[in-house]
């Protein structure tokens, strides 16, 4: 994908984003398309892991970018554009879950979708990736949402709590629970305190 890996969900050098955002604010659709091409992969990955359904994740991505276009003027640059997009995406996922429930796709469909692409560093066995995705998929909604945002996309507990509309303490508890369940399901040893 075109995105680069950095901490905190930032997917692109801010100056590039800023130029494109300025263009999009002036009504330049090509600039906005470029922003879409740069960020949609991460937004889709996040939505797919949160919704567990490719069709629902696609809807969320589309709504995220449509809402982003509508609200470009309110983007103040206090966070990165990627973080701003992810906030919108999480909101879409939660709204969709409220409206349509959280029916999930089978493990195989989701894992196959997630297994198509791999941008992690270094060699990694595809079977391991599938195991981890399957284990993530099996987590309860609350723990999975918090784990995906905190452990996978690198947001702080405070940011995750704000995105999900929960208390920071609740977020920490969900991540703790998620980590414990993941360790169990992946056969990793329990952490010692």
């Amino acid at each position, binding site marked *: *994908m075109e*995105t680069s*890996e950095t901490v905190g969900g930032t*997917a692109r050098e801010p100056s590039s984003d800023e130029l494109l955002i300025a263009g999009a604010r002036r*009504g330049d*659709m090509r600039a*906005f*398309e470029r922003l*879409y*091409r740069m960020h*949609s*992969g*991460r937004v*889709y*990955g996040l939505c*797919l892991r949160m919704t567990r359904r*490719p069709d629902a*994740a*696609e809807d969320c*991505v*589309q709504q995220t*970018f*449509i*809402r982003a*276009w*509508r609200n470009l003027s309110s983007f103040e640059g206090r966070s990165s554009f990627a973080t701003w997009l992810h906030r919108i995406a999480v*909101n879409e996922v939660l709204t969709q879950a409220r409206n349509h429930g959280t029916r999930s796709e089978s493990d195989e469909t989701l894992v196959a*979708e*997630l297994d*198509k*692409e*791999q*941008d*992690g*560093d*270094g060699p*990694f066995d595809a079977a*391991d*990736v599938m195991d*981890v*995705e399957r284990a*993530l998929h099996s987590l309860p909604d609350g723990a999975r949402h918090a784990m995906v945002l905190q*452990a*996978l*996309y690198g947001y702080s507990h405070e940011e995750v709590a*704000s995105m999900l*509309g929960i208390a920071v303490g609740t977020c920490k508890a969900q991540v703790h629970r998620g*980590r414990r369940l*993941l*360790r169990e399901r*992946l056969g*990793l*040893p*329990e*952490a*010692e*305190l």
Partner: protein
Amino acid sequence: MSSRRLDALDETLAKLPKSVSPERDLWPEIEAQIQAERQLKPAPRGLASRWVQLAAAVLLVVGSSLVTVVVMRDVPDETRSVAQVEAPRPETIAMPASFAGYRLGEDYLKARAQLDAAFEQRLALLPPAAREKVERNLNDIRAAAREIADTLAEHPTDPLLHELLMSTYQSELQLLVDVTHMTPAPATRVQL
């Protein structure tokens, strides 16, 4: 070692792809919808239109409340002082005491309690028709505040809703203050 074990999980998670390509290109549909919105109206605001409607409702209520205040200023003093006949009072609606996870501050509640007491005292001196109108307007403001607070519960991070709710609280306070300052104080034995 616990840190090594935690690292093992983190390393495992770090290997997962953050970016995943959807099955199909979603851009054409996104672009089509944006273009359709641009052609339909110059300033499209799907969700925002609800807030604008709410804002319009609040402005209407505040506007009518101000009219009430102006009308009451024109009521002669002697008319006010004969407001002893009890008119049926509309059911009182209270302002929301909390919204979107926030609770009103103690300073506000304290000032509010004092103002409420003064307001009730002065309200009793108004002619029944004027009193009824003030109470109706007050209830309208409070109902609007509750509606905004309920919507805010669904969209707790919406800055426009926060602003709207704050302005509604201010409008309610302003109406209480206006009525309290405008009506004459209860007659004392010396004045009689």
